[in-house]
């Protein structure tokens, strides 16, 4: 072939070597964007996959030392941006990209990793509310995993002292940021759990960037916390920082200080409870004493009455005995006095107004009867006399007598003179006769037989 003769003929190996050299030179520092496909992680730690887009695909590999630094898990379908170099595998002439940095597209790598781990652990139920253990009522020994030189340990110790928490603190000094920090934190939790005296563990650190806080987002820490024998309090960063450790921990405290407060609170409450109990003890005892005092007072009053009654009756008996011993004269005098009293009593009884009224009524009735009898008798006599008078009225009429020559002598006052004694010499009298009258003067008076004197 003429053409072949003109040009230099290369072997296959030469071509591949040339391509490898050229690609290596031109694509030694390249960023490639694509979707992960056909992902495969080998036991060696190397990751093999393809990066593809709508029209093409490119073999990719991430060797172990790079794969270990990945903050998130690669998987099919993930859109990533990778950094690396192109390499030709000369035995086959195929080329691939060797990636040393892979980041999820859109989200930051850490955020992606956070969400991936969160989803994974959540799926395992490690965040479940029923897994959360209550803090011990009275923690005595507190294990703390944090940096011995950070702000967090100072804040926590100051808080415990401030609230007078009577605890022993066992610090596991751990690096809390950078390479290896997560391993140390996990070791700290496990080491403290292995001790029998630890009641509660605080893992934490002060505020920082998401990279600073990153160890607390690593799975190894989450696993250590979820396996802890005692309740774990997380206190990482500031209030707005949420880490995987926070989700796995039994109690999430907003800050290291807040974590220490949770531990101290039990002691504060204890002190309050003790104060309350001491006050209640005093109050209850005072109440008991007050009630007893009242009961005693009542009893005392009661007994006093009994005593007094007994004393009185004893005195009575004594008087009786003394009375029995006195002379008969006294007794006589006494019985005399009794007689007087009886009489007086009777008199007194007579003065009783009811009895008096009754008695007076009886007396009145007697009087009435006594009065009635003569009146009735008198009345009946007079009625008889009236009857008689009516019958002999004509015969007795003085007018008839006057016709027969008799006259009636009347004194000036009209009274009838029937006896000599009624008049004296010189008295004027009027004589009444049958047809009229005339006036006379008495000369002298005398009896009927002796004539006038």
């Amino acid at each position, binding site marked *: 072939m003429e053409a072949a003769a003109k040009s230099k003929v290369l072997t296959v190996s030469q071509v591949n070597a040339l391509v490898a050299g050229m690609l290596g030179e031109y694509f030694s520092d390249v960023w490639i964007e694509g979707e992960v496909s056909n992902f495969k992680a080998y036991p060696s730690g190397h990751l093999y996959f393809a990066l593809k887009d709508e029209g093409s695909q490119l073999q990719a590999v991430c060797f172990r030392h790079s794969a270990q630094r990945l903050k998130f898990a690669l998987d099919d379908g993930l859109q990533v941006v990778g950094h690396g170099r192109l390499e030709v595998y000369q035995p086959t002439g195929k080329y691939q990209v060797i990636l040393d940095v892979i980041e999820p597209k859109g989200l930051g790598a850490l955020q992606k990793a956070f969400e991936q781990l969160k989803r994974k652990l959540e799926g395992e139920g490690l965040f479940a509310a029923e897994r959360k253990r209550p803090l011990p009522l009275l923690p005595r020994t507190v294990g703390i995993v944090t940096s011995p030189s950070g702000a967090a340990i100072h804040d926590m110790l100051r808080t415990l002292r401030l609230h007078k928490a009577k605890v022993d603190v066992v610090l596991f000094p751990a690096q809390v940021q950078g390479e290896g920090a997560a391993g140390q934190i996990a070791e700290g939790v496990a080491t403290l759990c292995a001790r029998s005296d630890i009641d509660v563990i605080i893992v934490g650190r002060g505020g920082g960037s998401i990279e600073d806080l990153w160890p607390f987002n690593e799975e190894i820490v989450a696993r250590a916390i979820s396996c802890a024998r005692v309740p774990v309090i997380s206190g990482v960063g500031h209030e707005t920082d949420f880490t995987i450790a926070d989700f796995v921990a039994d109690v999430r405290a907003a800050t290291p200080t807040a974590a220490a407060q949770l531990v101290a609170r039990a002691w504060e409450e204890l002190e309050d409870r003790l104060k309350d109990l001491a006050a209640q003890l005093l109050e209850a005892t005072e109440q008991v004493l007050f009630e*007893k005092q009242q009961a005693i007072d009542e009893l005392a009053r009661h007994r006093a009455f009994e005593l007094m009654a007994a004393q009185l009756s004893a005195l009575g008996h004594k008087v009786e005995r003394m009375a029995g011993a006195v002379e008969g004269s006294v007794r006589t005098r006494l019985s005399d006095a009794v007689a007087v009293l009886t009489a007086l009593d009777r008199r007194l009884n007579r003065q009783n107004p009811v009895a008096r009224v009754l008695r007076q009524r009886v007396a009145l009735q007697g009087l009435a009867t006594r009065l009635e009898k003569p009146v009735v008798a008198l009345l009946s006599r007079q009625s008889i006399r009236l009857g008689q008078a009516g019958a002999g009225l004509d015969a007795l009429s003085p007018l008839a007598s006057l016709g027969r020559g008799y006259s009636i002598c009347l004194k000036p006052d009209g009274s009838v003179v029937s006896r000599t004694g009624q008049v004296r010499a010189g008295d004027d009298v009027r004589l009444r006769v049958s047809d009229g009258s005339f006036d006379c003067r008495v000369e002298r008076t005398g009896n009927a037989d002796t004539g006038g004197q």
Partner: protein
Amino acid sequence: MAKNEKPIEAVDFEKALAELEGIVKQLEAGNLALEKSLALFERGVQLARACKEKLAEAELKVSQLVKDKQGLFSEEPFKEDKE
């Protein structure tokens, strides 16, 4: 002191508080003989005092774990850096 009542020093803090609580409840319920009431009060005062003393005397003790060459941990006092 009844035989079921331990000397205060040996009584656990929480147990002491629980006993004190029980004593207060008994006293508040009343219907106790005066002697018994006073005995309970005395015991309660002892418990409260012991607890208070324990609270007062306890100091925050801070130690840290240090790993030796064999990878074993030992405890030593933790000295805080001056703030």
